[in-house]
């Protein structure tokens, strides 16, 4: 009993600092949660207390409603967009790992001094905004017959996930003691075998980090998603939601909020779970 009290007292400054930050950061999501169940007449009344569900005239049983969320799932292609986003994300993560793992290893172990310069070169890729690139990329996409197809995104997205992932993995590989690999080599293992059988499994935390970041970069992307795919059922959530739920000058706010909250919660839960594992898996010195 006494132990718990002193433990709590020790954590008090932690709560005092983290609490407000967490509230500020998560407030917009709380707000989305409240908004998505509001009736139109309740929502579009500026006098109403926005934090509660206000009865409309005397019909107090109609205060909160799920009809906007239902609308999202039945009258729009939202489920399709969720599936498409997942497909693109997973495919891109796989491609990224296939390309970035060897590259990261090579830069960490085998390249000596020019590995550092390559590290700088990697950043330069991000300095070119997609608003500039989507036009020159359009003929490439068209010539490959990928217009209006998820494959166009799967082709293009690795261009911004690979550099960052390579850099991350480079850092991780540098922390794995050279002795592990050398021991394997002594026993007659080729470099490639050492790579796949020893290094990659140990760098699982790094791989998980790459998965999180690459996936989040894919889900966030907007411009390519909007211009390469024009049929609504092929869109991802990033382009489908603003396209369908904003019609001319009408915003379907409640459905928009629901559409944002659902993937955010799911992804945050996923990331949070992976985060634990990757931090626990650290064995001394990741970014030296």
């Amino acid at each position, binding site marked *: 009993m006494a132990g718990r009290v002193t433990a709590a007292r020790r954590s008090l400054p932690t709560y005092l600092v983290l609490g407000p*930050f*967490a509230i500020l950061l998560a407030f917009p999501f709380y707000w989305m949660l409240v908004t998505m169940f509001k009736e139109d007449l309740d929502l579009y009344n500026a006098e109403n207390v926005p934090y509660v569900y206000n009865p409309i005239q005397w019909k107090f049983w109609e205060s909160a409603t799920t009809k906007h969320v239902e609308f999202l799932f039945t009258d729009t292609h939202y489920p399709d967009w969720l599936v498409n986003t997942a497909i693109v994300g997973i495919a891109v993560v796989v491609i990224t790992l296939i390309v970035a793992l060897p590259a990261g290893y090579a830069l960490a172990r085998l390249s000596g001094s020019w590995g550092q310069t390559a590290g700088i070169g990697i950043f330069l890729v*991000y*300095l070119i905004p997609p608003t500039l690139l989507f036009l020159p990329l359009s003929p490439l996409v068209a010539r490959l017959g990928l217009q209006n197809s998820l494959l166009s995104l799967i082709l293009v997205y690795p261009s911004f996930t690979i550099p960052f992932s390579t850099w991350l993995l480079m850092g991780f590989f540098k922390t794995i003691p050279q002795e592990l690999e050398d021991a394997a080599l002594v026993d007659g293992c080729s470099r490639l075998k050492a790579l796949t059988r020893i290094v990659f499994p140990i760098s699982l935390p790094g791989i998980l980090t790459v998965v999180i970041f690459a996936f*989040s970069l894919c889900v966030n992307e*907007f411009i390519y998603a909007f211009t390469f795919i024009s049929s609504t059922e092929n869109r991802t959530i990033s382009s489908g*939601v603003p396209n369908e739920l904003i019609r001319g000058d009408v915003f379907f706010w409640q459905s928009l909020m629901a559409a944002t909250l659902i*993937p*955010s919660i799911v992804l945050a839960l996923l990331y949070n779970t992976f985060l634990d594992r990757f*931090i626990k898996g650290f064995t001394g010195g990741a970014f030296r």
Partner: protein
Amino acid sequence: MEAHAASRRKPGTRRWRRALEDRRVLAPLLIAPAVIFILLVVGVPFGWAIYLSLTDSIGGSLKGNWVGFDNFTNAWADDNFRKAFRNTLIFTLASQAIVLVGAAVLSHYLMSDFRGKWFIRLLIIMPWAAPVALGTLGWLWIFDSLFSVINWTLGHGLGVVDSSDPPQWLGRPNLALLSVIVVHAWRILPFAVIIFLAGLASIPSEVDDAAKIDGATGIKKLLYVTLPLQLPIALVALLFGIVFTAADFTVVYVLTQGGPFNSTQMLTTWSFQIGINSGSLGEGAAISLYLFPLLAAVTVAMLFFAKRAQVS
């Protein structure tokens, strides 16, 4: 060693395997897929974009007549462009300053164990988890000109502002600038916290123990032990935060459309208005390209600084 291994294999593959052992062959081989991919999907379009910026191409056409550097000089002459250039710097530096301080503090306290840690961390991660276009739409609703929950709280709730004429978070230039900076910082902060946590986890326990022996705990530890050791990782987080913010298009596009009266335009959104929506593709490409030397200079400076500041 090699002979022992070689004797187990067929003779024909010996030369091939020996080649693969040579790091001069293996290294480029492993890096090749990444480099080829980047060259094709980023390098070629980038080269094309540079070509476009030197032409007078319009309307999505990828061909045009040569105009030299006219697009660049014309852009500079436009005061909306200069504002966009300045704003790109302001948004990036201000939001990343907030992110850096916030992430340093948050990650320090998130290292220790306490009840509710998993849940608090979940809340902190959420801004990064929301797709940026959708999260920004949420903020658009929060800042709405009529239904802003902030204004309702300040007006009807606390009575500190006039409810019939509340502050327009997206309607007055300085408030709009502030709103954009807040949204940028909000969405990058979790990302930086994660990177900082990774860096903190890598501090060897000997350092921790030494600090405890020397009596450095809490704030003292933060200032004299944690922060200096975090410098390289902080620079990494700062670098990516800068890049993701300066090259971002979605936040300003969704939140303010560059308004009020073009006072929150960034290079990315302004180049979109000119190059795509107005059809002056060459000009738009030139405006976009102003971003490159800006960020390249920052990047090189920071990486140089990072190398020198590396703690052994």
